[in-house]
C-alpha cells in the first residue's frame, strides 16, 4: 500500500524530470541570470558591478534604442496590415474549388517560406542592386530615363524590409488560413447564399467568425515575429552592421545583438532583452483578453 502511494506520488515527477532539468538548465536559469545581468555592468561572470536601474534609465534616453523601437513598431504595424490580408487573400483565392492549378499555386506561394530569411535577403540584395540588379536593369531597359543606379535599398529601407518579409511570410500564413477555411461548414455558407447574402456579407458574417481563432494566432505570430526581426536587416544591410542608412533598418534585436555581442555590454543587452520580453508578453496578454471578450 505504502509502495503504491510512493509510486503514484513520484511517477509524474520522474517522467517530468528530464524536461524540468533541461528547462531549468537551458531556459529557467539563463532567464534568471539575464534578469540579474540587466542590473549589472559585466565583463564575464567574474567581473560584475551592480548598477541598479542604470541600464533601464539609460534606455529611456538612448536615441539608438528609441530609433530601434520606432523602426520595429513601424515594421510590426506594416507587417500586420500587409501580411495578414495578403495571406488571407491568397488563401481565399486558392480555396476556390473552381480554380485550376490551385495545388501548383499553393506550392509556388508557400515556396519562399521554405528557404528562410537569409536566402530572401540574398535574393533581394541581388535583385535590388544598383546597375546590375534585375529591377534596375529591367526598368532601365523599359524606360531609358530610369536611373540604373537607383539605390532602392538606401532610399526605401523600411519598404524593402516589409516587402521581403511579406514575400516570405504570406505563403506561410496562407497555409494556416487555408486549413481554417476548409473547416468552415459548407452548409452555413450555402444557407447564407440562399438567404441572399453577398460574397462580402458571407465572408464578413460567416467565414470570418469561423476562422477567427486562427486569425488570432496568426496575428500573435506576426506581431511577435516582427518584434524579433533581426536576420533580414542584418544581412541586407551587412555593410552598416545591420543598421542601414541613417539607422533606418535598426531593430530592437539588432541593437540588442550589437550591444551585447559587439560592444560586450551584456548588462545593457539584457535590459533591452527584458524590456522586449515584457512588451511581447504584454501584447500576448492584451490579445488574449480581447479574444476572450469577443468569445463572450
Amino acid at each position, binding site marked *: 500500500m505504502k*509502495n503504491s502511494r510512493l*509510486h503514484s506520488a513520484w*511517477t509524474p515527477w*520522474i*517522467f517530468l524530470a528530464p524536461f524540468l532539468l533541461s528547462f531549468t538548465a537551458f531556459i529557467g536559469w539563463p532567464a534568471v541570470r539575464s534578469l540579474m545581468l540587466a542590473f549589472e*555592468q559585466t*565583463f*564575464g*561572470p*567574474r*567581473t560584475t*558591478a551592480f*548598477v541598479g536601474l*542604470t*541600464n533601464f534609465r*539609460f534606455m529611456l*534616453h*538612448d*536615441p*539608438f534604442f528609441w530609433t530601434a523601437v520606432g523602426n520595429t513598431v513601424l515594421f510590426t504595424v506594416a507587417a500586420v496590415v500587409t501580411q495578414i490580408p495578403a495571406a488571407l487573400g491568397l488563401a481565399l483565392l486558392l480555396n476556390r474549388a473552381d480554380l485550376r492549378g490551385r495545388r501548383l499555386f499553393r506550392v509556388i506561394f508557400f515556396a519562399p517560406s521554405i528557404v528562410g530569411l537569409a536566402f530572401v535577403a540574398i535574393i533581394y*540584395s*541581388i535583385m535590388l*542592386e*544598383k*546597375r*546590375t*540588379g534585375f529591377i534596375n536593369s529591367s526598368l*532601365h531597359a523599359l524606360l*531609358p*530615363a530610369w*536611373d*540604373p*543606379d537607383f539605390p532602392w535599398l*538606401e532610399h526605401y529601407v523600411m519598404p524593402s524590409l516589409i516587402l521581403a518579409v511579406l514575400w516570405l511570410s504570406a505563403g506561410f500564413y496562407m497555409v494556416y488560413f487555408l486549413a481554417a477555411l476548409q473547416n468552415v461548414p459548407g452548409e452555413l455558407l450555402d444557407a447564407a447564399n440562399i438567404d441572399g447574402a453577398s460574397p462580402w456579407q458571407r465572408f464578413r458574417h460567416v467565414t470570418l467568425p469561423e476562422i477567427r481563432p486562427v486569425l488570432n494566432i496568426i496575428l500573435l505570430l506576426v506581431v511577435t515575429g516582427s518584434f524579433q526581426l533581426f536576420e533580414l536587416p542584418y544581412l541586407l544591410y551587412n*555593410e*552598416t*552592421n545591420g*543598421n542601414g*542608412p*541613417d*539607422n533606418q533598418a535598426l531593430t530592437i534585436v539588432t541593437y540588442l545583438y*550589437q550591444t551585447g*555581442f*559587439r*560592444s*560586450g*555590454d551584456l548588462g*545593457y543587452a539584457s535590459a533591452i532583452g527584458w524590456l522586449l520580453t515584457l512588451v511581447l508578453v504584454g501584447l500576448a496578454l492584451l490579445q488574449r483578453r480581447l479574444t476572450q471578450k469577443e468569445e463572450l
Partner: protein
Amino acid sequence: MFSPGLWIVLLMAAGSSVLIALLPVPTRPGMEMWVFDPNHAKIARYIAEDWNHDHASNPVTIHLITGAAIQSRMMSGFYSDTPVADLIEVERGMIGQVFAGPVKDVGFVELTGRLDRENLRTGINGPSFSPWTTRGHIFGVPHDVHPVMLLYRADLVEAGGIDVSKIETWDDYFRVMRPLMQDLDGDGRVDRFLLNASPTSIYYQEVLLLQAGGRMFDEMNQPTLSEPVNARIIARLATWYAGPGHVASEITLGGASSMRLVREGYVVGLLAPDWFAGSIRTSLPDMTGKFKVMPLPAWEKGGRRTSVLGGTMLGITKAGRTPEDAWAFAKQLYLSPATAQRLYEEARIVSPIKANWPEPFYDVPDPYFCGQAIGRMYLQLAPDVPLRPSSPYYGLAQQLLNQSVTQLCAYADDHRLYDAAALEPEAQRLLNEAQRQLQAQMDRNAFLLPSAR
C-alpha cells in the same frame, strides 16, 4: 513496487549518468591555434610543419574557423574559462569586445614586457600595434600593416591621355580624372565614376578620415568625433557623394556583381589596402595589365598619402598551458622572412616586421599591376599609416560617423548645397550630437572610466 517500465527508465538514466561520468576528459596534445582566414591558415600550417618537426613534444595544430565562430568561442572562453586555443588570430573588428573590461581580465597574455625585453617592439612597424593596445598594454603581435593606396584603371586612364603624376591632392585627382566620368551608353546619365565610395560605406569614411588626420578616439581611447578636422573632412566627403554631379559611387565589394562592375570600369579608382590588391588579383585574373596603384592623393598639399584598413593580430591566451612555447611559435610564425614572403606572394600583404622590408621579393615587378613593384610601394607608405583606436566603442563610433555623413548628404540634397565650406557648420552640429551619444554610451562602462584604470 515500481512498474517494470519505470525500472527500465531509471536504470537507463543511472547507467548513462555513470557512463558519462566515467568518460575521460579529452586532453588535446600540444597547442592549438585558431585562424579565420584561409590564406593565413595555409601559411601557418606551412610554418607549423617546421615547428612540429623540432618540437614533437608540443606540436601546434592550426584550425581554420570562421571569424564569427572564433569571436563567440573566444569570448565565451574568456568570460567563463571554457577551453580556447593557445593562440588566436583576431581580426580588427573582434578586438573591441576583448578590451571592454578591466585590463586584468583581458583573456590574452600581455606582451608589452616581452616585446620590450626581446627588443622586438622597435623592430615592428609602430602604428601597427595601436589596434591591439589598450590602456597602454599590448596584447597582440601585429600580422600586417595594411597601408591603403589608390588602385586605378590604368587602361582607362592611359587611353584618356591622363598623366597621374600631376595628381597630388584629392582635388587634383577629381579635376584631372574628370574627363573619364562619362555617359557611355548615351542615356544622359553618368556610367563611370571616379571613386568607389558612398555615404553608406562605413569603412571608407574611416579610411579617408584617418588619412586626413581626423580621428574618432584619442590615444587614451576618449571620443573625438566632434573635432573640427572631422567636420571639415565629412563636409568635403558630402560634396563627393551628394548632388547631381557626385563623383563617387559605390560598388558593394563582396556583392554578387561587384567584380563585374569593377571589370566594366564602373569606377576608375578604388581605395585599396595591400590585401585588397591581392584579392583583386585573385578575383579578376583576366584583368592583368589593367590596374595600377598610386599613393592616395593627399587632402592638402604635402599631406599624408596613405591610410589603413583592416588588420589582424596574434594573441596568446591566458588559458594556454604552455605560454612560453606559444610565444616561441608566435615569433617563428610572425617574424620569419619565410612567412613574410609567402604572405606577400599569396596575398600581397606586406609584413609589419621592419627587418623583412629589405627582402628582394618586394621589389619583383608584378605584371598584374603593369609591372609595378607594389610590395615596395606599399612598404614605403607603411611608417606613415595612421594610428587606430582599440576602443570597444569603435564600432559604435563608426556607425555614428556613418550616420553623420548620411545625414549631411541628405541635408546637402535638401538644401541643394554642394560646397564644403557651406556644409561645415551642419557637419559640426551632426558630429557634436554623435559625440554626445558616443560619450553617453561610454560613460556607462564602469570598467573603462579613468578611475578604473
